[in-house]
């Protein structure tokens, strides 16, 4: 028996030696273990967050976003409206593509024109839908003419990746995936990729911006949480993203790792269906009633008052979150600073229910996802228990996203909770979609499945959409936030936080609200 052990040890040692030789450990190489990666190397294929995150290394965008999603110059050094429907973008001079050619306004125009031709089911046209046409004024000036006044165009262009005109209109996913067409101006060059596998990148020495520290970057996709954490602990990767709350607690005591925490753009919001009749009627003392109690503002306030947000954060999310009083961070464009913290008061909730005509409460079905954001199902179940204290019987159903989203789209839920991230850093993205009256003609209210309709909010949003002046627009959207939140068109619960972990003392990961892990922003610890 002893002999066998020795043999096993020797075999393993030999294998270990093999591992060491192959994976040459260099201080200049950064190996990242990430939850998700791109679906294609074509930056115009999909709006998926992990797609943008990965491709930002290879391609630059016209406008860039800082760690709080506020705008900063990218391939455009400045932008200003020339008139109500024309934006002028000054393109940065002296920028080189990976093939050595120089960036001009023609490449930007080509990229805008290319999107509708090649984009997939997660359509990038949402970022160019306001564009009517583009005009190249001179080598470094581009005029973008919009269909209507488009004050948020620079926000849309945060996702406008620029590819070289030389790839031609016929290049598709295959040409990009093979690297042939993967020619950008970004800090890293494409080396290799396979779907759901590793993306290997090499530093581009002709980059126009700050030179990144890491010479070689390997982005490994490890979607399974325990597997990703094990990869960090065993030293296979240098850093991991999306550390689960339970591991975070343990890692804070672990001397071998550093952790980095950040607020995110993701909020859990409750949506009460306020249509005349509910898809499934509520029950009072076991009997179905025809009216929809959620139409009564008192009932919505009662639902809100019964939520103990501090407990949700501390117990259910194990500290990785913050109580929320609106649908996006307050420092975003249009976020309200005047809204108070949401109080927790079960007694008052009971009184309001009684005043609304439901002294014995009612029974209602409640839906949420169980696999989209950390803690979604747990928060959902905790909420139904909190409401039980106020005398309501809420049946929580945590569904797989594959089942949840189509049913939500069909309007099958009376009350639901979903995660929402304001990825553009400004209010029209979120409130225009969620609280404006659903109107297929204008494209507003596309995700307003709860039937909420408030003429005041609609007018404010529409006015904001055509106000080019930043200060005036900001005031309009702050008003939208105040009115819709006081109306409880949606009820915000908690803002999520995210955690990265890295080998102790090796690097500093700057926190970003969009949760992106960008190799060129990660600095070695000095």
């Amino acid at each position: 028996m002893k002999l066998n052990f020795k043999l096993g040890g020797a075999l393993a040692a030999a294998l270990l030696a093999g591992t060491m030789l192959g994976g040459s450990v260099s201080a200049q190489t950064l190996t990242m273990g990430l939850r998700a990666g791109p679906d294609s190397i074509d930056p115009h294929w999909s709006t998926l967050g992990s797609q943008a995150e990965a491709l930002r290394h290879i391609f630059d965008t016209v406008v860039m976003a800082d760690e709080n999603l506020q705008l900063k110059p990218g391939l455009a050094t400045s932008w200003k409206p020339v008139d109500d429907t024309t934006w002028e973008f000054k393109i940065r001079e002296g920028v080189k593509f990976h093939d050595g050619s120089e960036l001009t306004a023609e490449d930007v125009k080509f990229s805008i024109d290319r999107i509708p031709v090649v984009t997939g089911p997660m359509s990038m046209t949402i970022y160019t839908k306001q564009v009517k046409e583009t005009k190249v004024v001179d080598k470094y000036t581009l005029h973008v003419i919009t269909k209507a006044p488009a004050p948020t165009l620079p926000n849309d262009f945060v996702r406008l990746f620029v590819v070289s005109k030389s790839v031609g209109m016929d290049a598709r996913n295959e040409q990009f995936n093979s690297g042939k067409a993967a020619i950008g101006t970004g800090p890293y060059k494409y080396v290799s990729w396979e779907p759901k596998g590793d993306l290997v990148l090499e530093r581009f020495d002709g980059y126009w911006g700050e030179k990144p520290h890491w010479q070689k970057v390997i982005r490994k996709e490890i979607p399974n949480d325990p597997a990703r954490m094990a990869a960090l602990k065993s030293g296979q990767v240098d850093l991991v993203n999306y550390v689960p709350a339970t591991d975070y607690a343990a890692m804070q005591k672990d001397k071998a790792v550093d952790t980095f925490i950040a607020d995110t753009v993701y909020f859990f919001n409750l949506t009460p269906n306020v249509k005349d009749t509910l898809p499934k009627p509520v029950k009072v003392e076991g009997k179905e009633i025809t009216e929809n109690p959620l139409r009564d503002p008192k009932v919505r306030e009662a639902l809100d008052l019964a939520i103990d947000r501090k407990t949700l954060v501390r117990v259910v999310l194990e500290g990785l979150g913050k109580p929320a009083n609106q649908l996006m961070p307050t420092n975003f464009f249009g976020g309200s600073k005047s809204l108070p913290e949401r109080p927790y008061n079960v007694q008052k909730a009971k009184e309001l229910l009684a005043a609304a005509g439901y002294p014995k409460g009612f029974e209602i079905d409640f839906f949420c996802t169980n696999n989209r954001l950390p803690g979604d199902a747990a928060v959902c179940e905790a909420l139904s228990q909190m409401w039980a204290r106020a005398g309501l019987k809420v049946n929580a159903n945590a569904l797989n996203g594959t089942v949840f989203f189509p049913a939500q789209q069909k309007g099958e839920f009376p009350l639901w909770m979903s995660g929402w991230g304001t990825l553009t850093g400004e209010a029209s993205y979120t409130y225009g979609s969620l609280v404006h009256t659903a109107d297929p003609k204008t494209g507003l209210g596309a995700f307003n499945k709860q039937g909420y309709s408030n003429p005041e909010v609609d007018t404010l949003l529409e006015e904001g959409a055509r106000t080019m002046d930043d200060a005036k627009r900001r005031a309009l959207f702050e008003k939208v936030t105040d009115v819709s939140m006081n109306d409880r068109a949606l009820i915000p619960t908690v803002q999520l936080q995210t955690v990265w972990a890295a080998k102790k003392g090796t690097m500093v990961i700057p926190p970003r609200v969009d949760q992106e892990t960008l190799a060129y922003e990660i600095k070695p610890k000095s």
Partner: protein
Amino acid sequence: MIGFLIQRLLQALLVIVAMSIIVFLGVYAIGNPIDVMIDPASDQALREALIHRYGLDLPLIQQYFVFMSNMLHGDLGESFIYRLPVLSLIFSRFPATLELALTAMLIATCLGIPLGLWAGYKPDALSSKAIMAFSVLGFSVPTFWIGLLLIMTFAVELGWLPSGGRGPVSTVLGMPLSIGSLEGLSYIILPAFNLALFKLGLLIRLTRAGTVEVMSSDYVRFARAQGLSESKVVGLHVLKNISIPIVTVFGLELGSTLAFAVVTETVFNWPGMGKLIIDSITVLDRPVMVAYLILVVFLFVLINLVVDLVYGQLDPRIRVKASS
């Protein structure tokens, strides 16, 4: 023989048609794939346009016939998510799964049959009882849990083996395989052992049961009486007579390992087909789901066919019956 093959192919076709209908109906019942994939910033017009572009506004029957007629032309479609031909997407993952499944089956067979023979040959020995206890663990403890334990022990604590992923590949017989190098082997050991555990338990029990039964039969007694050595009795007479059920189970297990190694692939981040199909299901990437399941049906039919042919080699009685 040819009639037998044709019969098998017809069976396969029927199963494929039935299965494709079930998948189509299933996806249809869940909902529209566009609703799962769509970006939250999209408006209603874009949603309609996308649904139209992917033909999802057509009646289900029509969608199905478009798919079937394309399939008869050898075109299984393109993935919604990757816009790559489904077949090349699946086959790019196939070598990884194949080598993992074969290594696992090799481990299970090389350990399982000798251990089972021993346990059946000496059913009362302490070592046999230990083997049987181990076999119970093998198929009763959940795979993902054992996988995590293996990772914690050998990768995190001892640091002997990598915690996941696939090692460097080299081309062997025209396929990119990782088992050609020592480093590649270091990556496959843990997942393959994890995947082998269940089959190992199964094979041990199966072999033992067969051995116990055969050991008390007349021909073993006669063989012994003839003066044959024990190794010949067990290795030749016993093994050959218990091999039919073992081959059957081996075939079935090989098929299911190839098709559904998904738990192990997920825990060890092995870039195989199982992970691809699970990812496709979570986003309702219907072309990949249907094509994958069709391939799985083919695979099972093929393996069963090979198993039937092997029966004939092992047992002349089956061969005679088939030809008569």
